[in-house]
Structures are given as C-alpha cells and as structure tokens.
C-alpha cells in the first residue's frame, strides 16, 4: 500500500475506539483492597494460556484491540514476566502447563497480581475432571482477581484490568 493510500485510510478510519465507559466504582471488597497500590496507573500484563480452547484468547485480543483499547487505562501486554505486574491466566490448567505457570508467577516481581480470566481458569468450566486437567488456576497459584464468563466479554476483562490500574 502506497503512502498516500495509507494516509487516506488513516484519515477515513479516524478513531475506532469506543468512548470510555465510566470508571466502575471500586467495590470495597477485600479482593480489591488487597490489590497493591504500587500498580496504580500502570500494569504490565503477561498472558499465560494454561490450556485454553482459545475462546478467551480471542476476547483478550479484542480487549487489547483498537475497539476496547485496554491500553488507554495503562495496561499493556509484555513479553517477559520479569517486566510484568500481572499474570493473566486463561484456560484450565493442564498437566504440562502447571509447572510453567508456577514458574511464570514465580518469575514475576513483587508486588504482583494473578488474574484468572474465564470460567475454565476460575473453576475448570466444561473441562472439570478431564484426564489431563490439574485444576483451576487457583489450585496451582494464588489468584487475586477473576473474570467470569465462557468466554468473558472484552468489556469485563477491561473492567477487571481497570480495577487494578484504578483508571
């Protein structure tokens, strides 16, 4: 695509992102209270697919995509857990992914939060009791926040992230 076409496309498209919904009132439950204040305004997220069906991945991609634009609230996906403040777990924890999940959380510097996104990560969902399943994310690593839904709506994921960033 030539530069001119690109410029035209950019001008035509303009802003895709939907107007930001009102910041949800921080529920004063202990889960929210436990969230570290150091992470206000900036949360780097490392995503771990512990054995998902990729439904959550699609929603996650949408959440960080142009429409929902989670990045405007200060959340960003990063490559290394060393850079991350939040480990975002999707999918039921399978045998082969249990150890890597533990290692990833251990490799994330304190203070950190662990998000379990999707019913599978919260409570094994449809895969409960399947032969290759170790359990839910909370059975392997301490989980601070969880997002229900199979798959969860991007808006819910964004809302959860906003609870951490407080923006």
């Amino acid at each position: 695509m030539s530069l001119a076409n690109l410029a035209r496309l950019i001008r035509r498209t303009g802003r895709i992102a939907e107007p930001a919904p009102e910041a949800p009132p921080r529920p004063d439950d202990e889960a929210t209270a436990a969230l570290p204040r150091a992470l206000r305004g900036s949360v780097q997220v490392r995503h771990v697919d512990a054995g998902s069906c990729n439904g959550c991945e699609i929603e996650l991609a949408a959440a960080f995509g142009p429409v929902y634009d989670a990045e405007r609230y200060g959340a960003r996906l990063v490559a290394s857990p060393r850079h991350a403040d939040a480990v975002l777990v999707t999918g039921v924890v399978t045998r082969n992914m249990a150890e890597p999940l533990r290692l990833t959380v251990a490799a994330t510097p304190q203070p950190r939060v662990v998000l379990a996104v999707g019913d599978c990560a919260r409570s094994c969902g449809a895969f409960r009791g399947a032969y290759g399943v170790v359990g839910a994310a909370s059975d392997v690593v301490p989980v601070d926040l969880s997002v229900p839904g199979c798959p969860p709506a991007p808006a819910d994921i964004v809302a959860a992230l906003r609870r951490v960033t407080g923006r």
Partner: protein
Amino acid sequence: MSVAPLVVALVQVTVAVAFAPLVVGVTRQTRARLEGRVGPGVLQPARDLRKLLAKTPLRAAGTSPVTVVAPVVLLTSSLLLAALVPLVAALPLSLVPGDLFVAVSVLLLGTVAIALLGLDAGSAFGGMGSSRHMTISALVEPTVLVSVYALSIPVGSSALALIVAARRDHPASIASPAGVLAVVALVIVVIAETGRLPIDNPSTHLELTMIHEAMELEQSGRDLAWVDLASWLRLSVLLGLVGNLVLPWGVAGSAGFGPVLLGALALAGKLALLAVLLAAAEVAMAKLRLFRVPELLAGSFVLAFLAVTASYLVA
C-alpha cells in the same frame, strides 16, 4: 574548566531526563492515534517508570555483579551523553570536548554495558539480542564518523557544539548537498542505534525478532527502570542532536538565563516535532529482515561518503 558551560551541561542533563519519558510518550500516543486507538496518554512512560522503581527486582540465580552494575553504567553513559551533546546550548566544555568521537565512545560504553547485561543471565535470548545489537552498532560506526567528518569540514572542528553553532550562524550550509546528505545518513544511524523501525521493533513480543528487548528480558524492577530510562534518554538526546542540526535556531549561544530557557523551549518544540514524525514514519514502515539491515547501513555509509565528496566539490 570554566563554570558556566558546566552549569549549562547540568541543566541539559536535567532537561533531557525530564523530556525523555515525554518523548517516548508522544511517539506511543501518536502511534495509537494513527491506529485508531485512544492511547494511554503521553505521561504513561513516566507512570511505568514510577511503578518499576516501586517494585522488588528479581535476579536470576548465577548472575554476576554485571547484572547489578550494568544498568547503572548504561544510565550514566546516557546522562553523560546528554551533557556532551549540544541540546539546549552550544557551549563546548573546555577540558572535555563535546567532540564527536568522545560522545560516540560514551554511547558505546552504554552499548557494551547492555550487551554484557544480555549475556550475563545465560538465557538464549539475551545472547541473541546482544550479538545482533553489537553487530549493528559495529556497522553503524563508519557512517557516524564519516558523516560528522563531512559536517566538520566546513567548520574545521569536530566539536558538535561548534558544528551546530556554525550551522545556526550560516543557514545556507544546512541546505547544501553535503549538509543534507550527512544529516540523512546520520538520521539512519540514529534510528539504528536507538532500535526503532525498520531496524528493530520496540513493541515486539516475539523473542526471535527482538534486538534491544531481548537483552533486557531478564531485567525487572529498578534494573529495568534504569535500562528503559537510559534508552529513552538515548533516543531523545540523539533526536535532539538531529533537531539541532536541521533546525539550529534557538540553541543558546551564551550561558544567560534567558537564552538557556529559550533553548530549552526550542528543544521541547523540536523533540515534539521529531517524535511525531518518527511515530508517523514507523506506522508506515515494516521491520526489515535482520540481514537486509547491513544493506541499509551500507547505503547510509555511501550517503555519508558522498557528503564528504560533495563538501570537497563546493569547497
């Protein structure tokens, strides 16, 4: 050495440290807007920095003191670079020339520090990034020296401050073929040194395509904060240098309060402009394959070399 230039140098450092996160913020914000996103706002890098300082760093077992020292060395080299390069004012220090070769060596000291940092953890990615980074900075060197050689011919000195001052006083030399070619070559190497597109993708998550990121995969907390701040400083200092070479107006010629303030404001304007341009260009560009990069650098070398020849022709 006389005090006034030293004070100005320190002012430059503070200004650079203040601007560096904003410059990165502006590039990210511009990119976000061009992609139809809202973007986190220009203050986001500063927030990231504050948060990183508040975290407890993790260091892999079996790492050497290099892991602790290298980030600080890198930061120091970037700060020193900000003191040596004419950003706010073009006042050469008496004993430490803002000489090109000195500036480049200080820059390379930081490069070596981060390259060793990448090797130290003993992970595969670090070595990969380190090797690529060093190769590129090795190939960049001829272009840097030859292009500034071309710029120094009309001035008769390789001190960057004098070059900028001369261009400010004789604007005709900015549009001369030699000047244009040299600056274009310099821009290419600045992009290579600061790891921007098309040479390196600063926002990649794919380890195998990383150059700069791969070396800091192991860093966390304040270590990462130093590395990030240092590379942001590099970007803004080198952009500032390019800005002062292309639009040398507003650069303070004396150490008074007024001129320096004006210089700082002018610098802010140039940096903002260049950051927006950089982001816009990056949106339109794809990353070059690693082994096409030498081609680009060879091209920049030819441009620098032609600049030298051209400066002879008009001389």
